[in-house]
């Protein structure tokens, strides 16, 4: 056996002479021959495809790599999950890994959506590519499922309640609804079983579906039909875009360049401008005032907000999904140019507009509405999350009793605090005008209760029209200056 045979047999195993057991060679042959030897030159020109399919694959690869490393540190139990995420920040490059995983996950969903949109706009789903469109739709569905299942894993209030509400929606399905909710949650509410199920879905089951599906999708795109170029390019046969270019080195070289440039930008963003959110630890006994859906489900939150019941909203969502899924079967014309498909263009614009509108409505639902004293407190000092008082740096919180609307202060206050007091004053005036309240006053008390710890109390006193005694509303938060200012910078009495 010469060296070549030795390495070949190490890689491929012994040659199989008999007809049976051919499935493994078949699968390995599929993966080994996934990529064609030649591509059209147009497929590596950015303006033709915007590399959206490539970016989707790249972000998925980043997800897999960072996800495997994160699995080393993550413990999927309610008692340890949050702590393990916190501890990750103490590992060198740990926070970078988590930020990369989160940002690449969001970009994965976004790029997959844009990729589908480009395919729809360019009419590339037509004719022989109908099945490819189906695999793409399935991929988008599973990518969203991947993102949603991973959303719970940090085990903070935001994720816990978003997933609780999200899974609760299935309960509206007739017949199987309650059963499905219990299967997903591992009980009537999400606990250790539910977290473990979401973890297994996120790291094993969904990737086991997504990765082969991606291979099939890519095989159909690149090898079976070729990457679909915009109609204007494809129509001009003499165009340079149709010239064949070899996989090696031309295509691979371009892919490496795009990969390196993308990784550079991704790492630069997470290192200097992005922090994966982590709220308070999940508390099943405390429902937050406002539950936020993940950004890619804000449209669903908006839809549920305007629908009178959950079931019609779910029916609408499923119907829309099926309409997208079977698009090539009812749009059977071979015309791909946008100008020749006015009805499609009109429907697409209306659908996108609706999607944006519902997303906007979903965002609005997370904000407190109204002008009552309770709402004002919720805006300025929210029970969960961060409000205006969190926007000030620790040093800007000048200790003292600050009466809102009064220019008389016994000591100099920071400019940030002055702006905040002005803001509270303007909100108070607006609320008083809207609610016909008289004598609405507010005081902000900032005390240093410990080294580097301040207690901030916003107290509102309101005279309602029908009562003699004022009613007092107050909320207290604590802020710390750890890591911001040296410990001994507190005023010392000498």
């Amino acid at each position, binding site marked *: 056996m010469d060296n070549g045979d030795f390495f070949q047999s190490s890689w491929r195993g012994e040659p199989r002479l008999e007809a049976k057991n051919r499935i493994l060679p078949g699968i390995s042959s599929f993966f080994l021959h996934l990529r064609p030897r030649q591509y059209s030159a147009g497929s590596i020109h950015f303006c033709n495809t915007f590399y959206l399919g490539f970016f989707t694959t790249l972000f998925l690869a980043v997800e897999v790599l960072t996800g495997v490393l994160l699995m080393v540190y993550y413990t999927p139990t309610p008692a340890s999950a949050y702590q393990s995420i916190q501890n990750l920040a103490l590992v060198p490059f740990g926070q970078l890994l988590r930020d990369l995983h989160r940002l690449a996950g969001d970009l994965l969903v976004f790029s997959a959506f844009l990729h589908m949109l480009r395919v729809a706009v360019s009419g590339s789903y037509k004719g022989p590519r109908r099945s490819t469109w189906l695999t793409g739709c399935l991929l988008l569905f599973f990518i969203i499922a991947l993102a949603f299942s991973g959303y719970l894993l940090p085990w903070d209030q935001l994720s816990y309640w978003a997933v609780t509400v999200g899974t609760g929606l299935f309960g509206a399905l007739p017949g199987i609804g309650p059963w499905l909710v219990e299967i997903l949650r591992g009980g009537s509410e999400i606990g250790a079983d539910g977290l473990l199920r979401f973890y297994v879905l996120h790291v094993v089951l969904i990737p086991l579906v997504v990765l082969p599906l991606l291979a099939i999708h890519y095989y159909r795109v690149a090898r079976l039909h070729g990457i679909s170029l915009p109609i204007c390019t494809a129509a001009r046969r003499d165009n340079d875009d149709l010239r064949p270019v070899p996989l090696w080195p031309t295509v691979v*070289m371009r892919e490496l*360049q795009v990969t390196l440039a993308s990784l*550079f930008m991704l790492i630069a963003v997470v290192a200097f401008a992005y922090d994966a959110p982590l709220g308070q*630890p999940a508390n099943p006994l405390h429902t937050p005032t406002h539950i936020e859906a993940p950004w890619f489900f804000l449209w669903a939150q908006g839809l549920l907000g305007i629908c009178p019941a959950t079931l019609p909203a779910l029916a609408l969502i499923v119907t829309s999904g099926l309409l997208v899924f079977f698009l090539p079967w009812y749009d059977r014309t071979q015309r791909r140019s946008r100008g020749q498909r006015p009805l499609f263009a009109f429907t697409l614009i209306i659908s996108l507009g609706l999607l944006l509108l519902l997303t906007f409505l979903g965002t609005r639902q997370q904000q407190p509405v109204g002008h009552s004293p309770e709402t004002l407190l919720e805006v300025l000092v929210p029970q969960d999350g961060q409000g205006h008082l969190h926007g000030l740096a620790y040093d800007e919180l000048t200790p003292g009793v600050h009466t809102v609307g009064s220019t008389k202060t016994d000591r100099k206050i920071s400019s940030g605090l002055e702006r905040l007091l002005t803001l509270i004053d303007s909100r108070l005036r607006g609320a008083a005008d809207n609610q016909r309240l008289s004598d609405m006053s507010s005081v902000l*008390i900032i005390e240093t209760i410990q080294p*580097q710890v301040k207690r901030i109390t916003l107290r509102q006193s309101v005279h309602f029209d029908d009562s003699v005694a004022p009613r007092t509303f107050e909320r207290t938060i604590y802020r*710390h200056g750890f890591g911001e200012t040296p410990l001994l910078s507190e005023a010392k009495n000498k």
Partner: protein
Amino acid sequence: MEGREHRRLTFLGLALCCLLFFVGQQEERRVEATIAMQAGEAVVTGARLYSENCRKCHGSRGEGLGQVGPALADKHFFTGRMAEVGWLLGIDEYIAATTGAGRMMATRPLYAGNGTTAVMPPWALGHGGSLRADEIAAISGFVMNWRATALGTITLPVIDLPPPDMGNPATVKAGGEVFSKLCLSCHALADLPGGHGGPTLTGIGAIASGRTPGLSATEYIHQSVLIPEAFVVEGYGEKTDTQGCGALLSEVQLEAVTAFLLHRN
């Protein structure tokens, strides 16, 4: 053409390596800042939990409440408490262990006001309490953060909170509403019948000022709500069960109800 592509690839690879090297250089500082930030977040969480669960016995500034709970922001707590209870490990472990598991026996003959000796209840979920391990750790971190001020190495500025206006009719009215809602089931007034178990408070505004030497009327009422057994009206020795009042009332409500009672002279 191919050479240009190679040069571009090399440049991008080098740029990525430089970025990773730069990020790596910052990692040590970032980890230090994260440790400080997480400690701060834990202290802030501890402050909130302390206010919700511990303040009623140990005081909002850890000053202790008479016979109910010992002072925590106190030099003795950080220097002498461990010897007092025979604790051999560190003070931080003592705080965490006591907060989590409680103390089955009081170390001093304190009277809790409900016929039992004041003991520290367990707060950890595993011991029958309601707090998770991270919350116990947060409370411990918050109490430990009093060490510098307790030992006198740092003195914090004290702000002058405006004294409550006890004569304000609106405050008195609000206090009356609080009294009717929370106190009337035990204490009666001349024009407000009701009350079972507690002494009548008719004319308390006049009585309070001279009842305990050294205490003003306001201070006496505060003390009676927070530490009811500090002064027990004759005939009510076995019935003092007002420990819960301190827990029920917010600071604003306490001031309002005090104003209301002072007004009843």
